[in-house]
């Protein structure tokens, strides 16, 4: 990939992570610094979190991946709100 092309790499990866059936998540932040592709946000399962690294490695070989994506926890008990209509 050209140096100019690399400037758009985060957007291409963002699209790829949404389109890839192993991930399929839109609400991810993707950015790059000189050392690493950074991914942040949340996904529903650990499998999807792990797949993020695989997708990035396939599309951007040679880049390190800083995967700060969290797996959404739904372990907390439901909260209750009285709503006045």
């Amino acid at each position, binding site marked *: 990939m050209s140096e100019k092309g690399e400037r758009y790499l985060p957007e291409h990866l963002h699209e790829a992570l949404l389109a890839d*059936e192993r991930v*399929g*998540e839109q*609400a991810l932040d993707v950015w790059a610094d000189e050392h690493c592709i950074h991914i942040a946000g*949340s996904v*529903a*399962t650990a*499998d*999807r979190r792990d797949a993020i690294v695989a997708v990035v490695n396939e599309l951007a070989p040679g880049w390190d991946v800083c995967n700060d994506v969290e797996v*959404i*926890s*739904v*372990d*907390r*008990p*439901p*909260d*209750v*709100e*009285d*709503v*006045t*209509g």
Partner: protein
Amino acid sequence: MTSVVRIAAVGDVHVGLDSGPVLGPPEQLAESADLLLVAGDLTRRGAPAEAAVLAAELRRLSVPVIAILGNHDYESDAADDVRDIIEASGATVLDGGSATIEVGDVRVGVAGTPGFGGGFQGASCSEFGEPLMKAFVAHTRAMATALCRSLTALDTDVRVAMTHYSPIEATLVGERLEIYPFLGSYLLAEAIDTGGAHLAVHGHAHRGSRAGATVCGVPVRNVAQPLLGRPYTMLRLSTEGLADGHV
């Protein structure tokens, strides 16, 4: 007589083949809720096999379930199949229509539509220019029109509006301002106000805010599961003092 309707609500469960249960223990829901609303993005990519995973979980629930589809449920061009599979579990999937259930002596009406984008007052898209731009806004307008019509037709004690996209900006705070037009539309809020809803719930905005209200004061709750961090939220709506008319 005053009654309280207990509405469990969640959206954006994004169920895939790799998902475990997303709604918590069925007995917990049965004890605490009168109905469950699922505000779209039932699946990760809209695949029928993914819908079947959620349907299996819904089949174990004893409370009425009313759902709508979200944008993820359209991804595989199999939305009709997704809808059929979810409905085969006993749930109702709304697409501009409404459903009525009875909770004791209280009749609860739910009108639902996925909705769509377009933005909010002062910063919204218009039906002008390129055919694609017109189609974008017209699609939202058609969904809002159906929502308003369904709400208006509900002859129930309680009227709830359910959308996937947001009707207001307040429940988007936390998302990037630049993407608001893709997260909702004021046309949905206008439908909710004009149709006389007592409560509105939506999903889609994982990083948004929990609570807001329309300009006419209808409470709006963002129930996206990534935002809740729990299987669902419980909204208790008292029938005391509810307006019985439409704007």
